[in-house]
């Protein structure tokens, strides 16, 4: 039987007012410190004793400028680590230049959670079903990781290492997510399958992104959520379409490739076979939507 905990365990709380101060706290406490953004994952985890109680929670929300959302036609979009899902989803810049990102974020949780949770937090928690991940994978986002020792840029394709595991070390923070400007004549779609429309995890999530030259696909990016230990790019499905026109046949081929490549788990949410079948259906549906959207 599982125990139901009503109270949080003891921990200390600090609210640094500069990035340097936050990094020095993480450098000092290492695994005993937990960075806090929206808390919508951290607090349930700590309360449920699914995670050891941290000695200190480091609230990052008082660091000036960390919640900025900026766009520049050459550099693309930069999401500060503390930008909430609600603010990114509603940003005029995001809706205009990255509609698929805004749509993917709308499928997540509830208004109350979206008002607190951050896109960066969703990535750092790194569950295989993270709804922002497939979209960020096809948009080829780059993460800026910073520690006292310096900074490094990590493409999101190399960030996830397993369920709830990433390359982020204890003393590092993601300070921003950089998303390049989508090339002209590109279209992207994220489709999420879940038994309920709200407050539910993806059984399968599929993001498809196609850049066309005339009618030919000159760049194809397909990413899947909830069907492998991490969110993944699907190389075989991508190459099945590359250099071809979007037709019912080529889409069928790509969808079959995506479905044969995926290695989902069997659990109470869905059986392995069902997830694979749904990867086929959703990939086909996403690519068909892209085909039918006027350029």
């Amino acid at each position: 039987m599982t125990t139901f905990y009503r109270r949080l365990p003891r921990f200390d709380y600090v609210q640094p007012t500069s990035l340097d101060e936050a990094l020095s706290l993480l450098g000092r406490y290492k695994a005993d410190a937990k960075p806090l953004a929206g808390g919508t994952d951290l607090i349930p985890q700590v309360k449920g004793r699914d995670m050891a109680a941290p000695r200190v929670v480091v609230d990052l929300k008082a660091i000036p400028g960390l919640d900025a959302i900026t766009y520049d036609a050459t550099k693309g979009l930069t999401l500060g680590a503390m930008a909430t899902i609600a603010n990114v989803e509603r940003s005029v810049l995001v809706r205009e230049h990255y509609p698929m990102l805004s749509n993917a974020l709308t499928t997540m949780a509830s208004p109350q959670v979206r008002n607190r949770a951050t896109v960066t937090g969703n990535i750092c928690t790194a569950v295989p079903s993270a709804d922002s991940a497939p979209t960020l994978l096809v948009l080829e986002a780059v993460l800026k990781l910073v520690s006292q020792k310096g900074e490094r840029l990590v493409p999101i394709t190399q960030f996830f290492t397993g369920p709830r595991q990433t390359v982020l070390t204890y003393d590092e923070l993601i300070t921003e997510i950089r998303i390049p400007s989508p090339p002209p004549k590109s279209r992207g779609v994220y489709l999420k399958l879940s038994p309920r429309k709200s407050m539910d995890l993806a059984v399968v999530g599929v993001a498809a992104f196609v850049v066309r030259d005339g009618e030919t696909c000159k760049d194809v990016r397909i990413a899947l959520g909830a069907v492998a230990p991490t969110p993944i790019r699907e190389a075989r499905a991508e190459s099945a379409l590359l250099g071809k026109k979007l037709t019912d046949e080529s889409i069928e081929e790509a969808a079959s490739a995506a479905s044969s490549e995926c290695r989902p788990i069997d659990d109470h949410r869905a059986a392995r076979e069902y997830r694979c079948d749904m990867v086929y259906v959703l990939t086909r549906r996403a690519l068909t939507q892209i085909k039918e959207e006027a350029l």
Partner: protein
Amino acid sequence: MKEIRITVNGKPYELSVRPWATLLEVIREDLGLTGTKEGCGVGECGACTVIMNGKSVNACLVLAPEADGKEITTIEGLAQGEKLDPIQQAFYEIGGLQCGFCTPGMIMSTKALLAETPEPTDHEIRKGLEGNFCRCTGYTKIFESVREASRKSRR
């Protein structure tokens, strides 16, 4: 202990809180405002919804020290004396409740929704209340109450 200053329903408070206390515990236990309910305690059910600096949040997921300097509205802050808020009046007239446990959260989510979208579409109402669970009603009358509240608030 951490010293915090918060404003709840227009009234300022200076409190000494445990760092691991949630805003929900402070509202219910330190301030005695028990209109805000604890359901799941992990951000799934929305029974503890309050409005913090204009945005709806799950009070069970906010640490008390995080609320320092914030303005909070709870269900107790809506009525003016004996006069109900138009949203409360609509839930009362339509009967948008059964056991009533989820109602404060439903009303606070409606408050946040209508503040931003005074005339919500059906889809916007559903999205606005998607983080609030009701285990009795089947939602139809809650939905109708929100529509009626929108009408009343604009009158």
